[in-house]
């Protein structure tokens, strides 16, 4: 084969890459009922960097997207059911379940959308998992769940599922602001031997292919996410850890103050998008 012919082959081989490079224009209607906001104007704090924020759903294949549209097809819902069973189950020395204090899990609609958030009594920013563990230890007399481990993720998914369709609305001001600023600094810090920041991949390069991966904006409105790759629900901090590791850096630990701050900042970048968790990703 001569060089020209080889080039022609190359163009044909590479063509599909370009065809699906951008975010698609599909619309998401959950269970043929709830219209989801998967693209919206960027929140004011982000307007210098982005015009529009988009769910990671837009960057996945049609097949993966379809799995998230119906609860019967969404493998993440099995874990939601487990979380819902735990909601009503008594645990710990006080003889209480979550439901003893909170009523039905449906009463939690809207809660996920506002986390991480400032807790006045504790004087700290808390993720949903930190709040769950506070209830377990101090209300139920039960043991804290491991960060991003099965029981915690199942409950986070259950709490997220009852907020689906509601807009993410994480407060960035007031006493939470310094944590938010710390998260922002981490987002733009170029770490590891590859010297890459979250922004390099998810702000400057979303829509492009990095090897076989189609880069999204790295939004977390869809967490916990069921990943086809490992066939389980994945937590936000575990995802962060993987991304930081891929810069050839020393990562932070799930539950660390750095990742709590980063979660708060990244969540706020998705303000206005619908809560989607549990979403389906590859």
């Amino acid at each position, binding site marked *: 084969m001569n060089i020209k012919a*080889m080039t022609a082959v190359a163009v044909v081989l590479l063509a599909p890459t370009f065809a699906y490079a951008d975010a698609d224009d599909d619309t998401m209607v959950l269970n043929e009922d709830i219209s989801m906001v998967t693209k919206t104007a960027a929140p004011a704090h982000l307007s210098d960097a982005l015009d529009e924020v988009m769910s990671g759903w837009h960057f996945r294949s049609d097949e993966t997207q379809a799995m998230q549209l119906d609860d019967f097809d969404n493998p993440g819902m099995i874990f939601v059911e487990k979380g819902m069973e735990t909601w009503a189950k008594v645990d710990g020395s006080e003889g209480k379940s979550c439901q003893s204090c909170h009523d039905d899990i449906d009463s939690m609609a809207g809660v996920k959308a506002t986390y991480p958030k400032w807790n006045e009594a504790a004087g700290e920013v808390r993720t949903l998992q930190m709040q769950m563990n506070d209830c377990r230890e101090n209300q139920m007399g039960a043991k804290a769940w491991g960060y991003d481990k099965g029981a915690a993720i199942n409950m986070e998914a259950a709490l997220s599922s009852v907020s689906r369709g509601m807009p993410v609305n994480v407060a960035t001001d007031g006493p939470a602001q310094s944590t938010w600023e710390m998260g922002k600094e981490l987002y733009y810090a170029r*770490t*590891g031997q*590859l*010297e890459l920041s979250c922004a390099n991949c998810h702000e400057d390069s979303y829509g492009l292919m990095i*090897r*076989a991966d189609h880069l999204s904006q790295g939004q977390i409105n869809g967490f916990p996410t069921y990943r086809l790759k490992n066939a389980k629900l994945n937590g936000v901090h575990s995802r962060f850890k993987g991304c930081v590791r891929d810069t050839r850096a*020393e990562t932070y630990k799930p539950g660390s103050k750095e990742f709590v701050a980063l979660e708060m900042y990244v969540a706020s970048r998705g303000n206005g998008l619908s809560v989607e968790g549990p979403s389906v990703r590859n």
Partner: protein
Amino acid sequence: MNTLNKLAAASVAGVIALSSAGWAEMVAPADVAFDEDGAVAMSLTGKAGDAAMGAKIAGSKKIGNCVACHQIGALADIPFQGEIGPALDGAADRWSEAELRGILANSKMTFEGTMMPAYYKVDGFLRPGNGYTGKAAGGPLDPLLSGEQIEDVIAFLSTLKDE
């Protein structure tokens, strides 16, 4: 040590390295001399690289992984080429060998703030890890590519000409 002394020491070290083992790298990462445009005139090994080896390095996920970000028509058999940086077809028409060496050794000297990693740099990193383990680096880092590997990739890139 003043600059002149440093240079003298470096060149003495280089001569010793060269005489004790012909293939030893002459220029250590800390001693690479970039000109004001980010180009590096001197070969890192004192000799020309091997283009066929360079093609392997550029396409391999485990070594250079240049195709993670660049499309390279000459490597069309390698699937999933990225599109973060410009396609490298015709790179040798756009850049001299010295410029390519500079882009590989530390692209930030040529393109300020670029996303492209520096392949011949061993310090000045934030939270450097031990490879892709997520753990802290155990000691001094190796550059992402050796001087010899970089010369091989330069030899390969030098073949990328649009007629």
